């Protein structure tokens, strides 16, 4: 018999239930309990949640957990622990492992490794075998193994014909299968490291121009529209890419899009000290782009806030800027960055942020146990955070890595409890596993 909890007096924000009100939430037997069970006498553990926000556990649509193959950067154990600390109860694990997740055997391997983890892991399947952009990966057997999202992330699907074929082929399975693309035109970003503009000119770094993303987004949307396929665009970063997606949605194209916390918070000027932790692909853009991304989240053009959690070893990031690998970790800071950049200034309501970080990604992933609604009988996958707590980002992290773009930054909002199927994975802000 698992433990019983009552979170007392929390502000419950549960977009799937259309709920934002102060009340008690009881958990018993791993599921949300009915109102009659909130009676404190029946609960073995009462948690004073006054002043705290309780919501469905966050769901990350885009994380690199690195295992198998790159365990020196991160493991599924450390990556899921980092996720739990950030309030996540489920993450999608990108396919660029070694071996690549391009067949059902690796899907099962990742799931097996995740069984003891601190959150649920949903393997993303590769679009092409070995992420090489040539032959299609074994999609059918991966769908059968439960995979719902396919992506060659890290590499764009460079060839429009391959994208076309995969979007058409994905219709075969009777379930919604989403193809997620890292949208950057390869020829325009080759050799580039940061956003092309005044900062790249001044730093003497080759650029990755904004139009590289806009071209790829427009192409992908054209192909999705023609095929009727279901497209998801990873980590949008430019204002015009948001415009293109907005237009496509109005036009009925089956497309969704995500943005990372770092693109919502930082600009290319934040890389002016050659800080390799802020070297990310797509690169940090201009203040105007950042504004458009925030507006895109607010109006729903951008469906999801996803971390693109990309851990690297210290020695890999402590290298020359052009030689260091791109990526920042993000699972432990995502909620606080979103709160600090979107909710505190008042540009996006809290409910919309929870929707973009939990409800919607859970639906896209097919993670039916996650993302709410937190109704009686539903799995108790939830998190509780203090929206007022101010904290400074510093190592060590629960992640094995420490390449955070936010090191030294002060953020608002900190996760206090994370609960996976009625068990606390985080208590008093600390991981329990």
């Amino acid at each position: 018999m698992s433990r019983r909890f009552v979170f007392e007096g929390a502000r419950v924000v549960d977009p799937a239930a259309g709920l934002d009100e102060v009340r008690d939430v009881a958990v018993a037997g791993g599921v949300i309990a009915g109102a009659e069970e909130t009676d404190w006498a029946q609960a073995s553990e009462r948690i004073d949640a006054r002043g705290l926000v309780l919501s469905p556990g966050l769901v990350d649509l885009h994380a690199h957990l690195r295992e198998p193959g790159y365990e020196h950067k991160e493991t599924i154990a450390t990556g899921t622990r980092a996720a739990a600390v950030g309030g996540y109860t489920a993450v999608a694990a990108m396919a660029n492992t070694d071996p690549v997740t391009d067949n059902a055997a690796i899907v099962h391997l990742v799931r097996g490794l995740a069984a003891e983890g601190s959150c649920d892991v949903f393997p993303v399947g590769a679009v092409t075998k070995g992420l090489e952009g040539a032959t299609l990966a074994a999609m059918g057997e991966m769908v059968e193994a439960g995979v719902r999202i396919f992506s060659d992330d890290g590499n764009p699907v460079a060839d429009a014909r391959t994208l076309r074929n995969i979007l058409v082929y994905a219709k075969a399975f009777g379930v919604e299968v989403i193809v997620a693309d890292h949208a950057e035109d390869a020829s325009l970003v080759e050799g580039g490291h940061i956003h092309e503009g005044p900062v790249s000119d001044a730093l003497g770094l080759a650029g990755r121009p904004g139009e590289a993303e806009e071209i790829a987004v427009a192409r992908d949307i054209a192909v999705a529209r023609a095929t009727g396929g279901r497209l998801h665009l990873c980590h949008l970063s430019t204002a015009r890419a948001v415009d293109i997606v907005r237009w496509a949605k109005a036009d009925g194209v089956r497309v969704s899009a995500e943005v990372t916390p770092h693109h919502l918070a930082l600009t290319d000027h934040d890389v002016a000290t050659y800080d390799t932790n802020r070297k990310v692909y797509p690169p940090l853009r201009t203040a105007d782009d950042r504004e458009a991304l925030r507006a895109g989240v607010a109006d729903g053009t951008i469906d999801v806030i996803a971390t693109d959690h990309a851990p690297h070893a210290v020695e890999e990031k402590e290298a020359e800027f052009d030689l260091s690998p791109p990526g920042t970790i993000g699972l432990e800071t995502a909620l606080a960055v979103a709160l600090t950049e979107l909710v505190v200034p008042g540009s996006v309501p809290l409910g919309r942020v929870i929707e973009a970080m939990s409800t919607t990604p859970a639906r896209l992933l097919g993670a039916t146990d996650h993302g709410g609604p937190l109704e009686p009988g539903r799995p108790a996958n939830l998190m509780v955070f203090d929206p007022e707590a101010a904290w400074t980002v510093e190592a060590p992290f629960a992640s094995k890595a420490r390449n955070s773009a936010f090191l030294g930054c002060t953020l608002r909002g900190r996760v206090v409890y994370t609960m996976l199927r009625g068990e606390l994975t985080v208590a008093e802000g600390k991981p329990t596993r």
Partner: protein
Amino acid sequence: MKRHLLSMHDVTADEVTRILDTAESFREVGTRVIKKVPALRGRTVVNLFLENSTRTRISFELAAKRLSADVINFGAGGSSVAKGESLKDTALTLQAMGADAIVIRHSSSGSPLQLTRWVDGHVVNAGDGTHEHPTQALLDLSTMRQRLGRLEGLRVAIVGDVRHSRVARSLSHGLVTMGADVTLVGPPTLIPADAPSWGVAVSYDLDGVIPKLDVCYMLRVQRERQRLEFFPSIREYTRLFGLTRERAAALADDAVVMHPGPMNRGVEIDSDVADLPRSVIEEQVTNGIAIRMALLYLLLGGAGEPGDAA
């Protein structure tokens, strides 16, 4: 002076003047039979040249030796770097050996700034990727001032592949700091889009610019760029942006021609033009040693008057 010289943005106009004045007094040392002063005796200067550059390394080496510093040359080939040692570990090793200054040449933009995070000693950027090459800019400013008597108001064209040129970046910033009037000239594909924000003008018409110049500064054409489709051919580049004899003839009488070397004779500069009296390319080399002496002296020696040291 700041602790390090990483970019020409690090030095003010007054500091540039001070460095140039100090170099004037050191230039005389190079004309002596015994070309040496004791200013930096007992100090250790490491030339960390992780990208090949014989000319710049020799210039820094001579500068440090003429100041009586101990000089260590550390290159990539055959060193621990070739065995996979990181820049950080190399830096920490040099630090542990007591390097007072590290002169770094590296193919990666920003590596000198990164180095300052790992070592206590002074760091001098001897060229980082396509970022900056401030001592080249200083020696060019020194040469211009020597030859033309001033920097303020000088009309200077920097011609060629500005986009990939650390020399062009540093020299533009230095000239703008000193009040010169700079025009960048080259194929539009090789001029950074944001260059006007540096305080310079941009032109794609060398012939239109030439007659108004005090200094025509030619950049080296990096032939590998042609493969990247920045311009159609060397022949077309030379036709549009090379300093041919005809173009050189259109220069004002007292205008000078400069080039950071090594030259591609017949490509960006006609061989005969390179050898004209108005071409000051060898003076640039000579001034390079004096400028680097002045810089090392001001960074490491600090206090006394340059006259005392010389």
